[in-house]
């Protein structure tokens, strides 16, 4: 097994046709059981067990259901879905088709990040090839199962990667997260049972169908199985897309990418956590430091307050603006960072901002507001000395 390499190692070895054929030879419940046995967790960041999601959608009573592929890839520092779609799109399309067979849907939609418009043409061509080959259409692989896939473009809002905002956007509304429950598996796109999965998750599904759950579950850790793609960027010698097994220590990852001298690593994108050097022994997996695959390396010279500011500016702009804690809270945190830069933020106010961040984590409506203070809070926790006590002059 060749893990720990730059590029799409495992995925390039998988035959999408074999995965699809193997899935269609089974009953829907058997497909779901295979995913459950593989202990596949969603690759989009939240790590929800895919088998559970699919079995809920399969049980939901409705004659119309949908399979949505989340290709919005908006998390700063994440670019692995782009590579999957460019290099092995058939794995994804096969995975979606398998999803349709598993839950009883006949329509799939890829929600493609607006900035990836250049990928649309090749993806449409890949779909056309699949239709011509009978892998999509009225009778997939000659079975009575009908399934087709459509590509729809996002328009550049990060929040539209959140699954219910994605659905709102697909329905033609403002991209704003919905109240949950009900969850998409009960009432999703157009009010119908819907599964939303990440690009990589669908690719994993095809891989599991092709090579079997035991093969998949043997990679990684007990709770975090399978290979995982990482988008590595920042202050390192060899940035790029990597494939590692889950459960890798941060330090090992840094060695692999040439970032040994890092003082901190942001894992999980802007909404993830800032891990200081003292914690580089921790492992990257769902039971350790969870991530959708984004790793941003900060070298010894990085100003961590600048880092926090950069992330915060992103969230102030990308909050959908519907709920109070996120809409107003991010702006207050950013304002606080400006005060820190100027040396105008008292320790008491910093404590107030920390509390505010915790409230945002607790009370925001969706994952954006619930995780947007993470970077700020971890920087305040681990780099307090670096960010406090600046003088006004130093900031200019």
């Amino acid at each position, binding site marked *: 097994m060749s893990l720990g390499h730059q590029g799409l190692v495992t995925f390039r070895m998988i035959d999408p046709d074999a995965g699809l054929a193997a899935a269609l030879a089974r009953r829907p419940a058997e497909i779901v059981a295979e995913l459950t046995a593989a202990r596949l967790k969603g690759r989009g960041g939240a790590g929800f067990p895919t088998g559970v999601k699919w079995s809920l959608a399969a049980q939901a009573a409705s004659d119309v259901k949908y399979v949505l592929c989340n290709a919005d890839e908006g998390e700063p520092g994440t670019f692995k879905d782009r590579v999957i779609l460019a290099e092995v799109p058939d794995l994804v399309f096969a995975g979606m088709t398998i999803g349709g067979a598993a839950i009883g849907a006949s329509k799939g939609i890829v929600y493609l990040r607006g900035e990836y418009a250049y990928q649309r043409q090749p993806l449409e061509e890949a779909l056309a090839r699949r239709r011509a080959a009978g892998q999509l259409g009225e009778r997939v692989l000659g079975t009575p199962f009908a399934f087709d896939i459509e590509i729809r473009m996002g328009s550049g809002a990060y929040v539209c990667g959140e699954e219910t905002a994605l659905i709102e956007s697909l329905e033609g509304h403002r991209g704003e997260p919905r109240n949950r429950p009900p969850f998409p598996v009960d009432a999703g796109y157009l009010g119908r049972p819907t599964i939303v999965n990440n690009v990589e998750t669908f690719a994993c599904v095809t891989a599991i169908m092709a090579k079997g759950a035991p093969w998949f579950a043997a990679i990684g850790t007990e709770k975090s199985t399978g290979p995982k793609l990482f988008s590595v960027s920042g202050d390192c010698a060899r940035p790029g897309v990597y494939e590692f097994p889950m459960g890798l220590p941060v330090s090992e990852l840094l060695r692999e990418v040439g970032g040994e001298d890092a003082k901190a690593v942001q894992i999980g994108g802007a909404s993830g956590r800032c891990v200081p050097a003292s914690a580089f022994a921790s492992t990257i997996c769902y039971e350790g430091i969870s991530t959708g695959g984004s790793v941003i390396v900060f070298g010894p010279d990085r100003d961590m307050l600048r880092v926090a500011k950069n992330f915060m500016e992103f969230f102030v702009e990308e909050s959908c603006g519907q*709920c109070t804690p996120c*809409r107003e809270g991010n702006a207050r945190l950013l304002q606080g960072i400006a005060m820190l830069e100027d040396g105008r933020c008292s320790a008491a106010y910093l404590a107030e901002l920390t509390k505010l961040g915790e409230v945002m984590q607790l009370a925001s409506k969706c994952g954006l507001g619930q995780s947007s203070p993470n970077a700020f809070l971890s920087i305040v926790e681990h780099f307090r000395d670096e960010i406090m006590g600046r003088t006004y002059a130093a900031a200019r």
Partner: protein
Amino acid sequence: MSDHENVNVESPRAPVSQRGHLVRVPADQRASGALVEVAIDGLEVQVPIGTTILEAARKIGVKIPTLCYHDDLCVAGVCRICVVEVEGQRTLQASCAYPITAPIAIHTHTRKVRQSRRRILDLLLGKHYGECYACFRNGNCELQALAAGCGVDFFRFGHPTAPLHELDSSSYSVLRDMNKCILCRRCVRTCIDLQEVGVLETVHRGDKTTVSTFMNKPLAEVICINCGQCINRCPTGALGAADPTDDVWRDINDPSKHVVIQTAPAPRAAIGECFGLPPGTPLTFEMNSALRAIGFDKVFDTNFTADLTIIEEGTELILRLHRALVDRQPVALPQFTSCSPGWVKYIEHFYPEMLPHLSSAKSPQQMFGAVIKTYYAGLHHIDPADIVTVALMPCSAKKFECNRPEMAASGHKDVDYGLVTRELAQMFKEAGIELPKMPKSGFDEPFGTATGSGVIFGATGGVMEAALRTVLELVSGLKVENLYDHADILPVRGFEGIKYAEIRIPRLGTVPDILRMNAQLPFDSWAWLAGATLKVAVCHGTANAKRVLEDIKAGGKLSECHFIEFMACPGGCLGGGGMPIPTNPEIRAARARAIYAEDAAYEVRKSHENPAVLRLYNEFLTGGPNGHTAHRLLHTTYTPRGKYIA
């Protein structure tokens, strides 16, 4: 979709936006009718599956504070004030948006909850510019009450000291002050989902999120129908009515002016709410004394012209029917009522091609203005230029209506000021009048005696019931009391969104004198109506109006109607945009009860039996109903506005 919806609405409607924000429970779970056990702060209660945490808590007397939630609107779950802790959940949950589908334990005021709530409130206050002293919602503001309830004693994140937005005072009816907006989106949900007008929408995102009109144009330049439903549902002072109180005081204090006021039926059933009385406490006669006490020269009852409207509009209907049935000419039928100015502006914008259906009769408010500045001025030898007519209305759209340029057939503005219930209550308070303790007194002559038919104009179905009473009697010669118990035509009453009724004409009488006054009347017997059945419909809220109009356009059942009543506001005038805040279905039902009780208390209850109205025709409108003078003064024209904004 509909099998997934569980929305708090009193009328059937399909929300077109924010569908994703409804509290939805899969139909199979809800249909099972099962009960589920919840523990709220340790109190156990069983609720039907799908009940929200907020509803369940209310049931057992636990009050969870809310801000973006409103009984009339679909759930948003955006302010996050109502968050609670649900055992086993990592994050706090919005109680308004969380349907209970399994047994859960809930805690509504843990440390986490209180700290979160306070900070959310602090964040809102940090963006809310406005001093409570200088706000018309002082004492009636949900944000203020929330701050008091949560014990706010300092501004954790500061407080703006200068306005950040310009006031939009372009509209005759609705005032917008975005400085006070807390982005709860109730106005958006009111305008888009409840009324289906769609003037207000959320735009931009992040901390630039705001509520805007199309291209942020002033309200006067967009397709706002002035119904003011958004005002009634705004928790703060961000939306209000354009207030003419200062002008009214000025004219009252000007000895050269003869200032008269007409009062519509709905405000009487509600103004008590501004003085701490329960909804539906009628204060008609106390209000008359109070109005004189603050300096109005005469107090008239708009019911007088409600009766006049019925006769004019009823005659117009009979003439339309005659032209259609006997002359076989193309006539716009069904005829639509025209007394709700929000509805009139709605059809002008959204269905201008259907304007021929709209009765040309002015609304009671405008008819009264015209009668005062002509007939009344002559009777009392007062120069109409010195008369100021004020109209007390439940309705913000009446302010726009009285400023329509076509509403001045006498050479003077029919009505000078439209005052709404809330504003009059404020005038009383300023004058130190404790309305509930005022002595009772009647209305002034020569319009004194009104009928119950006028009163029920204040409730949805009221105009139709009044019209039916009159038309049935005029045509059959029978007393309606002999056809319907107490003349209560129940099929057109109630809060159902769209009501349909067929009323058989029991027999034909002789054509009554009042109609014969019109020399152009094209018939002298009712024979042409032999065997006829009147088909009528009633709807309220423009969302329902839209359904009715679409059904007519599609040739559905409602296209066979002869007469349809439309009211822009849910519940009719008693739910008007000028009525006391708050509003909800129970409050509107209580006001309706007061209105129907007042109707039952009148001796003469039919418009065509109102002696003052008959005198007006005999002495002044001598061409009779729809005659020349009546047409000049009491009828109007409309403007096909369309909905395209330059």
